[in-house]
């Protein structure tokens, strides 16, 4: 019986299931150690054992093993990691590259940054394994620039790994040579899109490329390139070390394994929760103290602002690729941003849309122009200057962006518009008929209830 099955057998909403049974810390298992980021700590917890097992296999067997484990990309799209590796043509005489996407910038997403801050060696070990599999001798970590504490620890971890012989020439005597370069970005959300990231890494403006050709054929410097998310690669060493069957014992058949869920917003205990795929938001909230006291959930995103929002109707949706997809959204980055009833959905969507307009790279007309006009309409509606016809116009513009641009930024910009109009059209209408926003932003702040509590005590 899989852990997911145990969860389901727990009966109904599983309010009785204990966190010990529902959670499965793997990558986060030793983050509470005093020096969790060091090579010493990592090795004490089985670090670089997966690499030894990988190097004992042939590269093709290794790719097949990772494919069999069912590991799927943790950056949003959920593409099988082993299959991505398999697409790299072999014997083509060209250099192959591995590029790790550590440009975590999707609003709400905050998993890779704490992972790299507390446990950078899991990524480095995964990189060595992946490069052995795809026959690459140079890998890059493209880290967003705005996280200097993480950059520091990556610099240090890479230095330690070279010194210990996990990077450099003939790693662990295997004959595998590998250079690893840590590359800091310079502030552009679009560089999280894999082809824009490659252009950026080539020293250009980060603008997406037309596909095909896909990066597996013509990626970095027009050579075969695998682009993987941090969490995907960091999950590989544990799969090798503990076995694919262990990995598949968690989650569901199509979405096996463990993953980091990031709970944020108006909840009692925001933070990272590593659990088998398929856990529900209700289970996570139940074990962690629920919404902040005295408030109820209004809307939430399953995987960042680019995934269509959910409401309290969706508390029992299994948070795996299929479950969230069937409910009309996407698992995305598992960034569970929870907003309570004090939050104005029009304000939230306006702010996200301003973000997409700011971050649109300008290459595709529908996205560049569409996000601009969405912002104009939304600002008017929020300020009480909107008209009823604007709501259909919002839908129409979003429809003209969605699926009509090179990359997913445009689709992401359309998601909050479509989904908020679907679930909260009446709230938009109230802004128009009431000539303004009916919400008090002061009530949404993290400290709103602190003040009330103190006033209550003092009164």
């Amino acid at each position, binding site marked *: 019986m899989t852990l997911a099955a145990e969860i389901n057998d727990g009966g109904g909403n599983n309010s009785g299931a204990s966190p*010990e049974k529902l*959670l499965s*810390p793997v990558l*986060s*298992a030793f*983050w*509470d150690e005093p020096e969790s*980021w060091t090579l010493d700590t990592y090795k004490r917890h089985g670090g670089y054992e997966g690499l030894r097992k990988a190097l004992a296999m042939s590269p093709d067997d290794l790719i097949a093993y990772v494919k069999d484990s069912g590991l799927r990309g943790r950056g949003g799209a959920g593409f099988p990691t082993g299959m991505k590796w398999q697409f790299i043509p072999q014997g083509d005489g060209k250099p192959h590259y591995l590029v790790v996407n550590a440009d975590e*910038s999707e*609003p*709400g997403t*905050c998993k890779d940054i704490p992972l790299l*801050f*507390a446990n950078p060696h899991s990524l480095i070990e995964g990189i060595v394994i992946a490069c052995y599999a795809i026959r690459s001798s140079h890998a890059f970590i493209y880290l967003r*620039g*705005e996280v*200097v504490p993480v*950059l520091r620890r990556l610099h*240090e971890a890479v230095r330690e790994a070279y010194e210990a012989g996990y990077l450099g020439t003939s790693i662990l005597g295997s004959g595998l040579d590998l250079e690893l370069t840590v*590359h800091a970005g310079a*502030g552009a*959300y679009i560089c999280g899109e894999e082809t824009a990231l490659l252009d*950026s890494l*080539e*020293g*250009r*403006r*980060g603008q997406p490329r037309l596909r095909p050709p896909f990066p597996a054929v013509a990626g970095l410097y027009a050579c075969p390139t695998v682009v993987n998310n941090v969490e995907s690669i960091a999950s590989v060493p544990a799969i090798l070390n503990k076995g694919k069957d262990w990995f598949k014992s968690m989650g569901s058949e199509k979405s096996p394994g463990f993953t980091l*869920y990031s*709970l*944020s*917003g108006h909840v*009692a*205990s*925001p*933070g*990272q*929760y*590593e*659990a088998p795929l398929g856990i529900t938001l*209700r289970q996570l909230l*139940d*074990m*962690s*103290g629920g919404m902040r*006291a*005295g408030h*109820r*959930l209004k809307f939430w995103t399953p995987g960042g602002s680019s995934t269509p929002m959910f409401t*309290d109707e969706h508390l029992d949706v299994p948070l795996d690729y299929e479950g969230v997809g069937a409910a009309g959204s996407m698992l995305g980055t598992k960034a569970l*941003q929870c*907003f309570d009833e004090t939050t104005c959905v029009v304000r939230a969507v306006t*702010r996200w849309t301003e*973000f997409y307009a700011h971050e649109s790279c300008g290459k595709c007309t529908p996205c560049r122009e569409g996000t601009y006009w969405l912002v104009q309409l939304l600002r008017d509606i929020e300020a009480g200057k909107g008209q009823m016809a604007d709501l259909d116009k919002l839908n129409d513009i979003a429809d003209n962006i969605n699926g009509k641009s090179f990359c997913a930024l445009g689709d992401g910009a359309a998601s909050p518009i479509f989904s908020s109009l679907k679930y909260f059209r009446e709230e938009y209408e109230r802004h128009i008929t009431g000539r303004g926003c009916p919400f008090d*932003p002061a009530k949404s702040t*993290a*400290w709103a*209830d602190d003040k009330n*509590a103190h006033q209550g*005590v003092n009164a």
Partner: protein
Amino acid sequence: MTEARQEVSLGMPQLPAPAYPAEVRARLEADAKEVIARYPDSRSALLPLLHLVQSEEGYVSRTGMALCAELLGLTTAEVTGVATFYTMYRRKPSGDYQVGVCTNTLCAVMGGDAIFDRLKQHLGVGNNETTEDGKVTLEHIECNAACDFAPVVMVNWEFFDNQTPESATQLVDDLIAGRTVEPTRGAPLCSYKETARILAGFPDQRPGAVEATGGAGPASLVGLRLAKGEEPHPKVVAPRGEQARTDAPQQTSASDPDHPAGPAAEEGE
């Protein structure tokens, strides 16, 4: 004369950027060679090199861009096109401390908007403006991947988690007064120029910088603590039954004298 010349643009092309003094140029060139050697193709070094010239002057000047172009065999137009695309490259001289308040949706709702408004008022500057003493440049930033620590303020790209208008005001006052300021996650602050050098790929050499503030932040550990059967958070409300989950009135912080501060913990105070 001079004033009039500044106000009226006659569409004349700018004069070439002045060169760096020989000593500065020699130093930057040596660093640049090290950066370029990391990449199979030299142009890949452009983003780090722009960070590097920013570490010299605190912003990316025309002189800095001209040097990048020369070292990489690019035109200044190609370099300018890249430098203007990315938000971390400053285009004008700015403060020693870049104070960025996250105002993307989640942080904004949790209080980022209120913090940003308070700081604008307190410092007397607008977005992307610098205080007269040249200490602090204020800007609003996009999501910085720390939503579980909202609302977040970044100073020179170190994390100041779980801020309030009061804590943020104290923070900028300390920066202006030259008092030591330590982030909740990250190393004791260095200047913006020194930060830019780390971004160019030169590891922070200060003793204790890597170790500073310990392992994971408190929010990063809540799941792990629960999985270990430990209480994740000193202020978590008691688990509730079926009814109370989403729709029924719940116990409020006001009615819970044991937890008068409610569930929102203040870190880094």
